[in-house]
């Protein structure tokens, strides 16, 4: 709240501050802080601001605005940041549809955009741009990695389920790409659906040996709760979007045993991650999620590039970003030719923690150095 007020005040005083120092760096963050799905935006913001606080630089100003998950509002805010506040860097968008509304025109107009979450396929492929960097993942990464993992584990007939919208169809396509085998069935649900009784009955009636699903946010919570009491015995797999620390707390015991892929885990052993997890718990008194880790990495990437160049020197700053010269909390991290990560994807299992609440435990690596398939369509 404090930070936000500061950002809000900063916003009002930008004209005064802007003239003060030419070397200052201004970062605009558009993210979802109100309405459904706002815990993702709050985590990205808190992770990002934690890194900024730890760096303790007074020449960086971060302006934060809430998009309320509305594409047109996000678009208007991006205009505000670019045209009024003249920010050097934009970041923060959570949802693919908002990213599609904002990013293409932002990068075309010569502002850098660093995505802390959304990674739609178009922006990794045909619409890639030299000023666009994705610090999280291409949307397919985690699903594909789970496909590879389940094949290795010897599952032969998984049933796939996702909402009927582009990220959902992409998710299943990504899964199938690396699973490579036949699947029992594909079930598409409605976006925002809350009752899954009919789908669970279909799953029960199928001859599948496992279930892979992509139901982000509240949809996943609803599904897992209903799955628990249905009496269907089948191993469950998914991507971290349905199993972040916040979500599994809300699901409760129903989540235990589920396997999920993530590019990050809080129990990854590296110095950067320890500093992050401890710092986050101290600052905000809760466990970080992968979204917080992405926000944190985004800020640390920016900080590392600022050591080398100011964003006004576009070519040098871009080169500095491309080098990704920072210790990512996820371990190894580098950018592919389309400015999307090449990274290891881990497998986690939801287990009962010491306090009796479910938590994720690192199991191993699903796929090393995964890269999205859209890179070859990218010409920059």
């Amino acid at each position: 709240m404090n930070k936000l007020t500061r950002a809000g005040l900063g916003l009002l005083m930008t004209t005064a501050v802007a003239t003060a120092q030419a070397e200052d760096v201004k970062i605009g963050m558009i993210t979802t802080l109100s309405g459904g799905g706002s815990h993702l935006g709050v985590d990205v913001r808190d992770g990002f601001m934690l890194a900024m606080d730890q760096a303790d630089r007074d020449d960086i100003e971060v302006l934060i605005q809430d998009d309320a998950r509305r594409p047109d509002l996000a678009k208007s805010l991006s205009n505000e940041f670019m045209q009024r506040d003249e920010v050097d860097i934009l970041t923060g968008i959570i949802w693919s549809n908002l990213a599609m509304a904002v990013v293409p025109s932002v990068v075309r107009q010569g502002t850098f955009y660093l995505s802390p979450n959304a990674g739609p396929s178009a922006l990794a492929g045909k619409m890639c741009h030299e000023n666009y960097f994705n610090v999280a993942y291409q949307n397919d990464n985690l699903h594909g990695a789970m496909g590879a993992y389940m094949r290795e584990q010897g599952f032969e007939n998984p049933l796939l389920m996702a909402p009927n919208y582009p990220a959902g169809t992409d998710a299943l396509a990504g899964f199938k790409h690396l699973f490579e085998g036949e699947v029992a069935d594909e079930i598409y649900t409605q976006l925002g659906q809350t009752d899954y009784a009919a789908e669970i009955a279909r799953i029960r009636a199928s001859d599948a040996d496992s279930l892979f699903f992509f139901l982000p946010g509240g949809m996943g919570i609803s599904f897992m709760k209903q799955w628990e009491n249905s009496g269907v015995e089948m191993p469950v797999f998914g991507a971290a979007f349905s199993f972040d620390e916040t979500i599994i707390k809300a699901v409760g015991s129903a989540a235990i045993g589920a396997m999920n892929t993530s590019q990050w885990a809080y129990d990854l052993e590296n110095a950067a991650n320890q500093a992050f997890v401890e710092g986050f718990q101290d600052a905000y008194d809760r466990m970080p999620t992968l979204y917080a880790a992405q926000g944190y990495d985004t800020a640390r990437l920016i900080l590392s590039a600022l050591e080398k160049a100011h964003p006004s020197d576009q070519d040098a700053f871009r080169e500095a970003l491309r080098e990704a010269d920072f210790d990512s909390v996820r371990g190894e991290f580098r950018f592919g030719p389309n400015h999307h990560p090449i990274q290891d994807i881990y497998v986690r299992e939801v287990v009962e923690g010491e306090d009796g609440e479910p938590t994720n435990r690192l199991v191993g690596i699903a796929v090393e150095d995964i890269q999205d398939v859209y890179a070859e369509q990218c010409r920059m």
Partner: protein
Amino acid sequence: MSVTLLIEQLINGLQLGTMLFLMASGLTLVFGVMGLINLAHGSFYMVGAYVTALATVSTGSFLLGLVAGVLAAAAAGAIVELLVIRRLYHRQHLDQVLATFALILIFSEGTRWLFGSSPLWLSPPEALSGSVALPGGSRYPVYRLVIIAVGVVVAAGLYLLIAHTRLGMRIRAGESDREMIGALGVNIRRLYTLVFALGAALAGLAGSLVGALQSVQVGMGEPVLILAFVVIVIGGIGSIKGALLGALLVGMVDTLGRVFLPALFGQFMSPSDAAGTGTALAAMLIYILMAVILAFKPKGLFAAHD
């Protein structure tokens, strides 16, 4: 498709229908007696679920949580009625829509302010978890059967209340002639507050029960609010009987549409395309149903009055 699966899906439709009835009955009651369109009805659903979740965690008893949730929703309803709603009875529908739209914003963001953005934990009690065997070898969650039972009890209770009690008589009088019951010496303000709180309590009950099966989060009332409106419009606004039949119809059509349409399209399309197209059509199905019904019966199936 086997008969077992069909039976299971019919029960699913019935369960969705009973949940919708809990929402729709309050909505239709408030409209029938006071002539008020209440978009904020979904907020009471959310209040019920939130309070149940919080109270269940702190008391350790789902039953206590449920009672707290229903009471909180009723109290929230009564307060909102006293502060805002009673100024709206003589206003146009348009003003009612705007004011209750504003209430949604206040409730949703106020809840988020108080309890944060993260979804809350709420699960069915231990005694009601697990599943029972259905004829034909399939299994069905106990908790969903309980929801159906609660729905039936509430429907019966509402019938008794309206047909056989003094309050019910006043409600019926209010539905047929609003000026009249004032003349009969009934304290009409208190009646209105009571009816509104009753409607809110029913929504809170739905939220509390379903909260154990769904994500308890800000905005959870909106999708179900729209469905409840579809239900009461199909059934005829102001009619409890209409709400019951409308709820069952919508529950069945929605559930069966989600199951059968993808399968139907699978007959002449590739599985992926069929799943996509079928699901898309299933999402539109209840709206199509509503448009068709209204095209032929402009006042719904069992209109009480306009």
